[in-house]
């Protein structure tokens, strides 16, 4: 049984050309970010910079406040991820392994709420946060991300596989529920915790609409909000905007590439929920 060669050539040829087409915008972004002002808008469009320069990056940090936005984005994404992990992991574990009245009904109710798009809540949420003095603060950006139904679901599905005997044995030894959670449950859940961390980190980093609504002070802007605003001011500055796009996308691409296995696992588990 010899595989006919042309078929293999076609399959791999199509895959290779599709990959080139798909990666092209990202690669060109990287190349253009090192071009001199005006170079990217010549015709035919150049593929690589004639004289690579870091001028665009220097300009972004020196005059466009990019350092500030980068810091805001890192701070907010890390804080939202850390806090939401604590809340979601605790709740997900409880929904899987601790008994309390109304547990199943509550869980079904939460899954039902997943059909409601988050944007429905935005107007009242804005008013609520305004009332609480959280509009135009870091807190206002983080607060709605502190717990997520999807995160709780993900942890619960994974926690179901923890054997009850293990928890019972610890209880008989006199360990408190908190002790059991910290010493036994969290280590067992570590793969799904990493998965959820990657999801939350990428989600909060890439989030656009809510920070756009809740932040009005430029000093608090996250990278996507700042980039959207800069791109309206600097319509002609291709190369500068490409450098900004690199600074915005590169961190998430690096996180994704280094933790890809965990991310893909979460994606599969999330797909099963439907």
């Amino acid at each position, binding site marked *: 049984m010899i595989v006919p060669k042309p078929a293999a050539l076609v399959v791999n040829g*199509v895959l290779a050309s599709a990959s080139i087409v798909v990666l092209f*915008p990202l690669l060109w972004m990287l190349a253009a970010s090192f071009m001199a002002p005006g170079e990217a*808008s010549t015709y035919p469009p150049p593929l690589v910079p004639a004289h690579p320069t870091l001028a665009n990056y220097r300009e972004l940090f020196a005059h466009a406040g990019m350092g500030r936005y980068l810091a805001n984005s890192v701070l907010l994404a890390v804080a939202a991820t850390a806090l939401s992990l604590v809340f979601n992991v605790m709740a997900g574990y409880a929904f899987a392994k*601790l008994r309390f*009245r109304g547990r199943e009904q509550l869980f079904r109710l939460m899954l039902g709420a997943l*059909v409601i*798009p988050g944007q429905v809540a935005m107007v009242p*949420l804005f008013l609520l946060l305004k009332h609480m003095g959280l509009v135009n603060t870091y807190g206002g950006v983080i607060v709605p991300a502190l717990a997520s139904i999807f995160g709780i679901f993900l942890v619960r599905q994974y926690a179901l596989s923890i054997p009850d005997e293990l928890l019972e044995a610890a209880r008989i030894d006199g360990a408190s*529920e908190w002790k059991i959670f910290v010493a036994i449950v969290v280590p067992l859940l570590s793969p799904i915790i990493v998965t959820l961390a990657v999801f939350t980190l990428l989600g909060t980093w890439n989030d656009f609409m809510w920070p756009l609504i809740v932040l009005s002070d430029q000093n608090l802007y996250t990278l996507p909000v700042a980039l959207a605003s800069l791109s309206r001011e600097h319509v002609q500055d291709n190369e500068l905007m490409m450098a900004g796009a690199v600074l915005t996308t590169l961190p998430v691409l690096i996180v994704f590439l280094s933790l890809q296995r965990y991310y893909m696992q979460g994606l*599969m588990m999330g797909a099963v929920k439907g």
Partner: protein
Amino acid sequence: MASSRSSGHRYVAWWFVAPALLVIGVFFVLPVVAALAISLTDFDIYALADLSNLRIVGFRNYVELLQRPLFWQALGNTLYFVVVGVPLSLGASLGAALLLNSKLARFRPFFRTALFAPVVTTVVAVAVIWRYLLATRYGWLNYALGTLGIAPVDWLGDPHFAMPAIILFAVWKNFGYNMIILLAGLQNIPEELYEAARIDGASAFERLRFVTLPMLAPILSIVAILTVAGYFQLFAEPYVMTQGGPLQSTLSVLYLMYEEGFKWWNLGSASAVAFLLFILIFGVTAVQTRFARTEFAR
């Protein structure tokens, strides 16, 4: 003794779920309910300053919206995006998944990661890139078309081409997500089915038509439902690439909600837009779900 311990246990469980439930309750459930209430008021910039200016107006916001040409335009644009974008997106996902699942494919992890990469990128950043790729005079897309002898297209400046350009961008950005899910589905199809089909003399196309697609149908319909729900929430793409233009040809329902609410501060009307969008998404996905159920029940 045992009963007192298990009741303490029960009590502890609430401490585990309380923080998350509190956040979801206060910052999601409560606002959703409040959105319905606010959509029945004339909440505007005056009410924002002083709540005593607030009046209950019943369904007036909804009635006025349904009489506004701009709302219908936004709805039409959004439906255009969904009706054209979702099939293209799913087609690209399925095609890529089939290729990656082929036994002939080499370097699979590389291709998989390459095709998936746009999914994890930031919409705003890649929309900025695409704005330049789509530029009329010096953009790569027009350059590529030019080599085929096609005259330059003003992608983002022509009302006929702006939405197709945004759809192209959205397909590029999103198809990798469903590709991964469909690939997992393909890998779960038992090899014996293909063997049996081959023994019966089925061609490659017939195996795809009578083995692969029927086996993949349940997961394909789930993916379709989730994608439709997601595509209805179009916002960042037109915000960055076209600002809803030209001639409002890329104004989406969510964009309208944003402008109503956070540009003009008509929060009552904005909530009504949000609710109409929710009802629309709910209705469409419910029909899809029912359709899928009856299909697979046979």
